[in-house]
């Protein structure tokens, strides 16, 4: 297979040569490795990489991925890091409009004209910078003779990958992992991984989130060795009896097995380590737990995030451990009841939520473990019980932290195409994508699948969200159909339901709105409401704001069908730089980098300042979110 730069222009090409999306379970060789969360099957490729920047595709170095390419003229860059933070490309903040606004005329391929393929729109674009990365590595000796893949946890926005001069594949969806099998091309001694990253592709139409527009390898890169018998995908389905007293557990796996006679030991323990389930089975196509009963289960909730421990150990026929997969899961039930009230474990659920962009003022969307742990502590300290991952899947660890801390998650897809349908404040979807344009459907359904497959086992996730502000059409309907097919245990959310009522019944289980006034909410709920009401964004906390929250909180007692909402948003997006005049560290926002067009300070809507200190409004959130916790 040969790479083709025209894929950048083609909405129908978004994954080439990639391994299928799968659950985010980790696997280890020993209990010690589990305890230290240090899998010997993983070799990190984070660190210094060789790097060349080109201002557009026409100026990029050809054949930099060849095995014999001389990269001595390359610079160095850190991985993970946004290319803008490394100083090669300009910071640019813009909200709903596309970053090429006022500079390049673009309409999405096929949107206005089924014959318009958009050829050259990105592949020959003067505003499409390119990052060329080279990483030389020697394989961990323990990986020898094993299948080995490379996993990119996040790369914006389109990338081509080669190993030792052999093309491996192409990926778009920036915020979910992209994996490629390296096995056929690995060699003794030094190996050369080459990655070519483009800032723009058709994915740029789908990733028009209100944020600084970055590109590059911004999350971890790992080599992952595969045991001879390996759980490729794990699906844990805990369900509850109608009276919520007893649980039933079903587990299925997808396997890759290169060794006969392997045996799986499946155990389930409670949080105190008492073993409740124990089974040994030969490893075949799937390791399964079928309808295993759990009497008198301890329910999982925000206040009591009680998790059970599933452990699957795979041994070879001589009893040597091949891999151990641990995963924590919870028993809980999310429903809309016969009164159209959102319930959790049989009781009305009130969402005291926030929207959270990933942000660190010193590194952008490259967030640290400390950042994530600090955010969870802030949630817990201020009665925030839910998060919407706006508007893309987050770092994997975030969901794990939400699991163990009982933070309810609205897991949102990487999708926002605001600029294609709202112009100067008016709804004007003449060239909306994905819309009902057939050529854009597979890409967005793939995004839904990536999100689902990675995250499906998390106890914390209670809603799937199809994306943000992308209008509504057949393609978004297809995303909902995907979720409804694979996951009857969670609800589907999408706010675009209010923008195009034609799709009202097929894209969201909620009446979801953003920034509706308390009176508008009353108006909906007083007039034969069809669905429970949720605010996916409210209390726009820009600057000195968050006044009048009482009027929203008062709705909770009055309207059982009001489900609460997610404050916009958690943390200001600003970048810390040295002031050119005083030399002091200061926070800068849109327009401060000669970036135009911009939406300037509109990125500063957080309950936290960009340096992760609390805004004064937080005490108000703590108070009101404490009223119905």
């Amino acid at each position, binding site marked *: 297979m040969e790479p083709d730069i025209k894929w950048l222009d083609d909405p129908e090409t978004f994954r080439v040569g990639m391994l299928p999306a799968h659950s985010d379970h980790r696997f280890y060789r020993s209990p010690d490795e589990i305890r230290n969360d240090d899998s010997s099957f993983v070799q990190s490729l984070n660190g210094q990489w060789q790097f060349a920047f080109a201002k557009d595709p026409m100026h990029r170095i050809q054949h930099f991925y060849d095995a014999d390419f001389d990269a001595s003229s390359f610079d160095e860059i850190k991985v993970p890091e946004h290319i803008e933070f490394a100083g090669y490309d300009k910071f640019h903040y813009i909200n709903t409009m596309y970053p090429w606004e006022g500079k390049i005329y673009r309409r999405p391929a096929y949107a206005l004209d089924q014959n318009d393929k958009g050829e050259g729109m990105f592949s020959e674009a003067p505003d499409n910078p390119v990052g060329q990365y080279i990483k030389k590595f020697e394989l961990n000796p323990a990986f020898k003779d094993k299948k080995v893949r490379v996993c990119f946890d996040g790369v914006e926005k389109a990338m081509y990958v080669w190993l030792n001069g052999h093309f491996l594949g192409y990926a778009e969806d920036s915020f979910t992992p992209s994996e490629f099998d390296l096995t056929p091309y690995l060699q003794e001694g030094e190996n050369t991984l080459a990655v070519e990253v483009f800032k723009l592709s058709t994915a740029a139409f789908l990733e028009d989130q209100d944020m600084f527009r970055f590109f590059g390898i911004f999350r971890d890169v790992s080599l992952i060795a595969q045991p001879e018998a390996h759980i490729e995908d794990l699906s844990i389905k805990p369900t509850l009896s109608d009276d919520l007293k007893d649980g039933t557990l079903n587990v299925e796996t997808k396997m890759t097995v290169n060794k006969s006679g392997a045996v799986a030991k499946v155990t389930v323990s409670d949080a105190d380590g008492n073993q409740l389930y124990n089974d040994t089975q030969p490893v075949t196509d799937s390791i399964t737990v079928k309808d295993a009963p759990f009497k008198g289960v301890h329910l999982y909730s925000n206040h009591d995030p009680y998790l059970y421990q599933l452990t699957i150990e795979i041994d070879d026929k001589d009893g040597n451990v091949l891999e151990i997969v641990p995963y924590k899961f919870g028993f809980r039930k999310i429903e809309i009841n016969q009164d159209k009230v959102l319930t959790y474990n049989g009781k009305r659920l009130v969402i005291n939520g926030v929207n959270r962009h990933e942000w660190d003022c010193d590194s952008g969307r490259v967030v640290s473990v400390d950042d994530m742990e600090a955010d969870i502590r802030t949630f817990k300290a201020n009665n925030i019980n839910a998060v919407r991952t706006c508007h893309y899947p987050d770092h994997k660890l975030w969901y794990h932290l939400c699991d163990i801390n009982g933070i309810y998650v609205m897991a949102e897809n990487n999708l926002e195409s605001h600029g294609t349908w709202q112009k100067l404040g008016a709804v004007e979807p003449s060239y909306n994508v994905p819309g009902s344009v057939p050529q854009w459907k597979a890409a967005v359904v793939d995004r839904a699948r990536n999100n689902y497959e990675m995250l499906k086992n998390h106890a914390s996730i209670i809603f799937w969200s199809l994306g943000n502000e992308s209008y509504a059409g057949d393609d978004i309907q297809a995303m909902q159909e995907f979720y409804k097919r694979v996951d009857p245990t969670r609800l589907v959310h999408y706010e675009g339901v209010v923008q195009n009522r034609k799709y009202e019944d097929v894209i969201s289980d909620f009446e979801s709105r953003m920034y509706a006034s308390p009176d508008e909410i009353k108006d909906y709920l007083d007039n034969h409401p069809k669905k429970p009401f949720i605010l996916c964004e409210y209390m*726009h906390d*820009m*600057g*000195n704001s968050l006044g009048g929250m009482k009027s929203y909180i008062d709705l909770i007692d009055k309207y059982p069908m009001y489900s609460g909402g997610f404050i916009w948003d958690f943390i200001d997006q600003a970048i810390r730089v040295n002031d050119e005049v005083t030399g002091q560290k200061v926070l800068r926002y849109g327009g401060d980098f000669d970036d135009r067009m911009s939406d300037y300070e509109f990125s500063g809507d957080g309950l936290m300042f*960009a340096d992760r200190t609390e*805004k004064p409004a937080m005490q108000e959130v703590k108070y009101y979110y404490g009223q119905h916790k």
Partner: protein
Amino acid sequence: MIYSDGGLGVGGDNFHYIFNYTRSGIESMVINGKEWLYREPKPIFWRATTDNDRGNGFSQKSVQWYGADMFASADKVDIKINDQLIEFPSAPLNNKYSNHEYADKVEVIYHFTTLTTPTTDVEISYTVMPDGDIAVHVHYTGNDQLPDLPAFGVRFVMPTLAAGFQYDGLSGETYPDRMAGGIPGEYQVDGLPVTNYMVPQDCGVHMATKSLTVTRNTTKDNSDKSSTPFKIKFVNDGQPFAFSCLPYTSEELENATHQEELPLPRRTVVSILGAVRGVGGIDSWGRDVEEQYHIPAGKDIDFGFRITKS
């Protein structure tokens, strides 16, 4: 009492005040030998535009109050001695006084006509008690032809940066529509922090305050070498008041697009507020602050507080 040509001096044990006749207010407030005023207190009509104010066009609608705040000046001064209005003691009428004039109660009233179209009237009166306490009374006469007010109160600009302040009120920064989470108590704030909003804007308001004590340890007096802290106290007079204590005026905050553009902090600006507009929060691109948290211009505003040696 010192009936001077340019102003009225009022002194007693450990205090001496001078009310200027042409500069719209009390010019000097010396307590225990320390000067507390940099410039005369003036009425507050403006707050630095918040992001929500900008989004809903409030600053455009209420822009008259910006000029009214920036350039306020009194056009008339009245003096009452022991509750009796006296003929204004301008020269040569004041030749009849001596260096031995005494009173139990002195009230100086400054009358402002707002620089708005139409105008309305504001009075700030200072009543000095024998112990040096000053009861300040402020009155705004409503005029429903004017736009909503961004804020209303009195601004004291002190000569040097305060070391900090202490208040009996609510925790944190609070506004009328964002004060439910404020916990009542006594709070000590070190320095004069400006809330780190990306774009500097109105900030630091504390609602429902019973008292505020400002502590300084420097003066502008070149002969004063002491760094011993000294204090002044603002105490509620009937109703609790709102205040902010910052190193900047609202106009200084208004002009900066980033925190680092604010001037070097060098003074203390105490705003004692009788009316505060809410901050709003439904959205930042059009929705107004909820009606009950506006300051309608048509309604009188009347409030008072006392300044006392701490």
